[in-house]
């Protein structure tokens, strides 16, 4: 972490110096703060010792940005702090802190940044730049800030070319002894090593081409570097050997947007010396819009998930169907609900989920989330650890 901070200081010293010297012109500053109170309740008795049922928690999310040169240059910061009963889930992070410059058809970003790739709803296969903040949420949509230099080049006829230089790898954090949603053995992130001799300082690269024509949005990407998912290898003696392999991963994502239909496809092929596999997610979303003439939208989602790793897939989505519904009221409070279920096609295991959110007044929001692990097959290598971890989560945020 000290080295990341050094990296940031050097980058920003440069950016600030440049900002000061070049622009007596208008600089727009913007500061925002979110305070969140959260309560997670696991209503089934814990499977492993040390785990609790009630997890009250607090989070703070400060944001700052300074823009100048008509918004073509900026410094952006997003911080994060969570305090939780599980002392591993108590953590802080710099989600983003980067300098950005754009000119005509190119854009350069240097610093810690978050980048999202992909189109699917139930699984984010192609998305690989940022490490998942695995203790923050179950859906994997929270990410750790990734140090990078990103260069985007937009062409008129051939789409956008993105080049990423990723000088530092960040390890995934797993829940601590007091935490739910963990394995029987508590995994300390520091115990996991690297295949690469350069360890976290392996200099990694990624490339993404994004193209849009008519109804088609296409993304083609390649990543070469330390994998974001640790690889678990079971030795003949029954021990687990876990490490971050060096991987080559090629990803393809396609969305076809036709009337009320969104057809979605994501696929990756990952190669490491210890493992090669293919995974994909394919499906559709159809929205009945403005049903009541009052703005009610009901979307139906269906996706098929496949992972060649089978039961070793960390995502546990090896041969499953996702079905769901997105309900948006399009009201003043932006009320929305996402219902979903993932059903294993070979075993009994099913995970149900509900996420709902609504604004109150102009600066409060409330969210309700439920994840229900139903009839988890005991032979599921990974999911069986979570079989008693169904939970309800309520969070209330105040924005300043």
């Amino acid at each position, binding site marked *: 972490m000290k080295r990341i901070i050094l990296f940031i200081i050097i980058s920003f010293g440069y950016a600030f110096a440049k900002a000061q010297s070049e622009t007596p012109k208008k600089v727009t500053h913007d500061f925002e703060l979110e305070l969140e109170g959260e309560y997670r309740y696991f209503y089934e008795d814990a499977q492993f010792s040390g785990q609790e049922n009630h997890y009250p928690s607090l989070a703070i999310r400060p944001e700052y940005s300074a823009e100048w040169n008509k918004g073509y240059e900026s410094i952006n910061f997003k911080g994060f702090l969570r305090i939780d009963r599980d002392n591993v889930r108590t953590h802080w992070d710099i989600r983003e802190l980067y300098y950005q410059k754009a000119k005509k*058809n190119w854009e350069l970003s240097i610093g810690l940044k978050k980048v999202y790739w992909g189109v699917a709803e139930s699984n984010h296969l192609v998305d690989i730049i940022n490490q998942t903040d695995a203790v923050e949420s179950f859906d994997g949509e929270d990410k750790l800030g990734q140090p990078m230099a990103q260069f985007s080049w937009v062409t008129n006829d051939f789409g956008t070319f993105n080049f990423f230089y990723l000088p530092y790898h960040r390890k995934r954090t797993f829940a601590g002894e007091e935490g739910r949603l963990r394995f029987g053995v508590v995994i300390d992130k520091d115990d996991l090593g690297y295949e690469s001799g350069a360890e976290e300082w392996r200099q990694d690269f990624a490339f993404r081409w994004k193209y849009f024509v008519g109804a088609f949005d296409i993304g083609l990407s390649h990543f070469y570097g330390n994998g974001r998912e640790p690889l678990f290898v079971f030795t003949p003696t029954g021990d687990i050997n876990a490490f971050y392999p060096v991987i080559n991963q090629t990803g393809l994502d396609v969305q076809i947007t036709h009337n009320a239909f969104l057809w979605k496809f994501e696929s990756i092929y990952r190669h490491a010396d210890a493992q090669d596999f293919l995974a994909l997610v394919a499906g559709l979303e159809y*929205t009945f819009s403005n049903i009541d003439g*009052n703005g009610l939208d009901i979307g139906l989602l269906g996706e098929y998930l496949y992972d060649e790793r089978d039961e070793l897939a960390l995502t546990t989505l090896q041969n499953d169907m996702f079905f769901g519904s997105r309900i948006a009221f*399009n009201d*003043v409070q*932006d009320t929305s609900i996402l219902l979903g279920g993932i059903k294993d096609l070979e075993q009994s295991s099913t995970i149900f989920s509900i996420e709902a959110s609504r604004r109150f007044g*102009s600066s409060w929001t409330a969210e309700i989330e439920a994840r229900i692990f139903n009839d988890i097959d005991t032979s599921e290598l990974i999911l069986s650890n979570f079989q008693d971890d169904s939970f309800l989560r309520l969070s209330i945020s105040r924005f300043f």
Partner: protein
Amino acid sequence: MKKSIITTIALVAFSMGFAQTAEERGLQIAKAAEEADLGFGSSTVELQMTLKNKNGQTSERFLENKTLELTEDGDKSLIVFNSPKDVKGTATLTFTHKVGSDDQWLYLPSIARVKRISSNNKSGPFVGSEFAYEDLSSQEVEKYSYKFLKEEGSNLIVEQDPVDPISGYTRRVVTYNKDKGYRIEKIEFYDRKNSLLKTLTYSDYKLYKDKFWRAGTFNMVNHQSNKETILKFSNYNFDAGLTDDDFTQVALKRAGN
């Protein structure tokens, strides 16, 4: 012979004076309005949106809008939300097309995701307001068929029927002001059952660059729900010199951060 000459003259006189049908005249007015606004190039503007429910309670949103004028196809636009704070940075990029459905992307800053979204939902409300998406999209001549209704002083009143069957309206009755560059003064919207749904009134007009009329206030009243939305425009800038490079998915993310 004489008779046929008289007939010819009569026919010519008739076709010059009267033969323009109400449909032709309606289209002509819409084209004149489009013509009058040609050449603005690009513009940026800040918006304050006030939503009023039937009890008079209000809530507000602040947005920024950038528009790029295109002549061969529809305009491009980028909208960024500055408030409410929980959706700050949410942004949309729209490529309007004269024929066929528009292309639209949504940027969600919390997960840094750009999503292509369906533009099928044109009749739905824009962020809980009384404006439907189709009310705010670029008004291309090709999107309606026309019928001239009447002339009242400098006002020309034209009925417009949406070409797209998924529009929320059977017709709109639009009042153009022919002495003020064919600017629109009022639109009445009729729902799918052909009853009056909403009235949009434009006011606080200002002339920019000696050519382009822009209203400072849009007031949309829903007669069926008694709800109201007021849009106030400020800081119009026609000198931003925006280009296609400012209307890409890369620019969309930049605008939302």
